[in-house]
């Protein structure tokens, strides 16, 4: 267990689970609700979700790890996603991504030490006509070059 992370109480997690139990197929809505609340799905939530749905920890883990957007640790205050799909790659996304990561000293999915920015890959934002594309806190940005990326990162406070 990561002790450096916030540890929500069992009751708080359980309340979120109980709020979704009336749904058909409630596992994904529960994981969404927990991530919404805490910014990630804490390890401690897995057994509680499993118990509530009469599943095993393994099953919940299997589902959660299948979806990249469920986080085991919270992201930074801002999330920058750089598209790595074919159209963007052909327009220089690989170099853009490498430079950005190098500049921040991060690996994919890493967060800057001050907690400002998390850099993630994404595979097609449907913005191929404006490649290379990125997404900043849910907002898409087109024609991202090095200068624009610097601007984005500076704005995010990294």
């Amino acid at each position, binding site marked *: 267990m990561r002790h450096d992370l916030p540890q929500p109480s069992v009751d708080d997690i359980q309340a979120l689970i109980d709020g979704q139990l009336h749904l058909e197929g409630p596992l994904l809505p529960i994981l969404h609700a927990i991530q919404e609340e805490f910014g990630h799905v804490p*390890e401690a939530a*897995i*057994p509680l979700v499993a118990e509530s749905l009469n*599943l*095993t*920890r*393994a*099953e*919940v883990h299997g589902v959660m*790890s299948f979806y990249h957007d469920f986080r085991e640790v919270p992201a930074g205050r801002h999330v920058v996603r750089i598209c790595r799909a074919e159209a963007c790659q052909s327009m220089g996304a690989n170099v853009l991504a490498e430079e950005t990561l190098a500049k921040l000293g991060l690996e994919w999915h890493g967060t800057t030490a001050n907690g400002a920015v998390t850099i993630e890959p994404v595979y097609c934002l449907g913005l191929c006509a404006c490649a290379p594309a990125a997404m900043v806190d849910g907002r898409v940005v087109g024609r991202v070059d090095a200068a624009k990326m610097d601007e984005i990162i500076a704005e995010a406070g990294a």
Partner: protein
Amino acid sequence: MKDFIIPWDDADMGTPVSKSEKMITLTIDGSEITVPEGTSVMRASAEAGIQVPKLCASDNLEAFGSCRLCVVEIEGRRGTPASCTTPVSEGMVVHTQSSKVKKIRKGVMELYVSDHPLDCLTCSANGDCELQDMAGMVGLRDVRYTPGQNHYDPSGTGARSQAEAKLRMPTGDLGNPLFTPKDDSNPYFTYDPSKCIVCSRCVRACEEVQGTFALTIEGRGFGSRVSAGAAMDDFLSSDCVSCGACVQACPTATLQEKSVAELGTPERAVITTCAYCGVGCSFKAEMNGDELVRMTPYKHGKANRGHSCVKGRFAYGYANHKDRILNPMIRDTIHDPWREVSWEEALDFAARRMKGLQERYGRKSVGVITSSRCTNEETYLVQKLARGVFLNNNTDTCARVCHSPTGYGLGQTFGTSAGTQDFDSVEATDVMVVIGANPTDAHPVFGSRMKKRLREGAKLIVIDPRRIDLVKSAHVEAAHHLALRPGTNVAVVTALAHVIVTEGLMDEAYIRERCDWNEFQEYAEFVSQDRHSPEATESLTGVPAEELRAAARLYATGGNGAIYYGLGVTEHSQGSTTVMGIANLAMLTGNVGGNGMGVNPLRGQNNVQGSCDMGSFPHELPGYRHVKNADVRAIFEQAWGVQIDPEPGLRIPNMLDAAVDGTFKGLYCQGEDILQSDPDTKHVAAGLAAMECVIVHDLFLNETANYAHVFLPGSTFLEKDGTFTNAERRINRVRRVMAPKNGYADWEVTQLLANAMGADWTYTHPTQIMDEIAATTPSFAGVSYELLEEKGSVQWPVNEAHPEGTPLMHVDGFVRGKGRFIVTEYVATEERTGPRFPLLLTTGRILSQYNVGAQTRRTENSVWHKEDVLEIHPHDAETRGVTDGAWIRLASRSGETTLRAKITDRVSPGVVYTTFHHPDTQANVVTTDFSDWATNCPEYKVTAVQVAPSNGPSDWQEDYAAQAAQARRILPAAE
């Protein structure tokens, strides 16, 4: 997966067999084949003798269609469908070897191999690897992909040994984020993610076969890998119960037995039967020479259908444990150290003492205890020793302390002393009632079959003071859990009957046709009385009336109802009454005589059914025939050439009482540890100490041996031929895979002892003993080793009417004629709670340990259960100042012991629970000598106790440990 070891019919057919009766004819590669509708093209091909390449398919799992290796071409259809997921259809024309599919297969294999370390020659699955086989089968000659970011450590590729691979492996950062090291946490197998091909067979086996759902595929795409539990788990900390199904399913070395890694690929296999619980699983003992490499479940075993549990699959190491005694030993008194002697000297010593005791104290002063762990043939000989050589009926068996009420209760009501169904019958059950049993722990393989049926939609009612795993575990939830107070079984069962009768839910036509109508009316009048209503008994039993009514309605109206029960029913002062009450419920609702129904005692030990069948009880000759019947005696008198005593002999508790009184002096105890397993340990110890000749015949110096004068070393199930009879009356062959390490199989030792006492037995193989059993015992009349070789196994009765055995009993009517309803009046046990002992203790066992633990404690299974703990409800713990894991003193009117507490709401307030696997806890010091009114089966399940914090072992535990250490001294062998 080891197709080459056993040729016969052990090949993997790819997908499960279809049960359809409609037949379909199709053509595969020019051959016509007819198979049942619903069969896959893959299986049809296999049945035509054509193997389609496959990796993710296995015939114990539903088709999955993920590996894409089994693609075929079908005339008139587009594309290349996967043969495992494509069902056959009439007139279909299939080509398994077109140039198109061959090209696809090669391409797929190339991709698999591009992410697989090619250290085949030093890999533990070498010669037993399906990936290797399939690469050969599809003719893979080239891998065009250059090494990139892989799951394995590329520096190890081409290493000439695993050690070299390890040496080459860079420490610290491997530069390969996808590489995950081996998971070594399970004591019996390893998980090596670098060799995983993500076929999901292990995950599906864990779900479909075992029903534990401990495994999953984590991640997605190229990054996906098998994961036990969640991110923070390894195999040991996950929900894994180590049943071995995943290891068996794995086509590569990803999940591999440590024994195979150490000893190499086995070269042959022998089919035999597990010697743990009453399920009686068939296993392949896979051997190199006379060395056992591994045990794998045999898929044609009719009890287990290819499944296993952690005990049978892995816990066989006790056979080679250093504690095992291999030489006979004697001593004059139990205060002397043991002296190792020759077999001749030990047998002569034993025979002289026993004969002397009979001369001095009378013919009836000695007796035997037969073993439910030994074979039918061995048990038959031990009771023959009592009846034919000692010339008395002083024979009893450990069934006395477990299922003797079953024998009595079902004999009285139905006419046979055994369960009515086979295990396959559960597949047709709609409502299961589990009473006083914990199948997922004590009969795990059958528990998995139950869970499978429950996931298919069958309903479950659990009647148990404790919330067993079946009540709620992944994908299984009981419709009703009647958490009764220990000791009130009869009241609950009668209240269920009350609801069925007063609400008119009984099957009157069935009762009129099959049962005695007058007895039924008397019974109906009795149960209809208001005092038996759930409302009236609620305060007594603690079961809410509405819950009980709903459960009764479900059982009576839910379709095929099957009752499974265990020692939670029998080990009570009213054990026999509850068994009869259960039989009444089944007759009331017409639930005996068909598939998916019945009354099914889950027998505890591998051969407890057989030991009862073989005449181990003091009042019954083999086949449950009373010794007072002169014509039955005449059969054996003629066969054995002796006069058989017409008076029943002593039961175990009577033997001990008589020993304390000074009239019972000598005992031959084979394969049973009565000191640890029987109730009221102090009384047992006093009885044994008062005897002048105790002969213990066992693998280990068990607790009883502390009071023995002669120790005869025993042989394991791997070292002898014979048969075991499981809980469904199935007679399974036990086959010798190695020579007895102690020199003699147990049946030979009994024969030597008999002959030393003047008998003239001349058996040279157990088959001759079975022939004698068949000749003297009607229900075994048709049994012979030839039949067992041919059929694999048979269920008794095997006679002229049923030459191939009898899977279902009472099909056209009850064996005794008319089914008999017996009035079941509830009488509270005399063991009551009071101010000094306010809690009720009940006992049971857990998955990884087995009974007194003589075997499992001597294996790695102790990883899962190192010591017995006392389960106590948080409320009871709090009022006593008991914390989780703290030492506590557990005291009853009989005695006291100490152990650690585990706080859990699995038990109700007022109830505590423990296991009896460890001799240093001695839970039976606490249990009382109350017993079943009909059969003396001890009341293990109800003891009034008090719990208090403690500092350490009780005086008894310290005295006992000191005495045991004294009694186990062995003198060095004289030169």
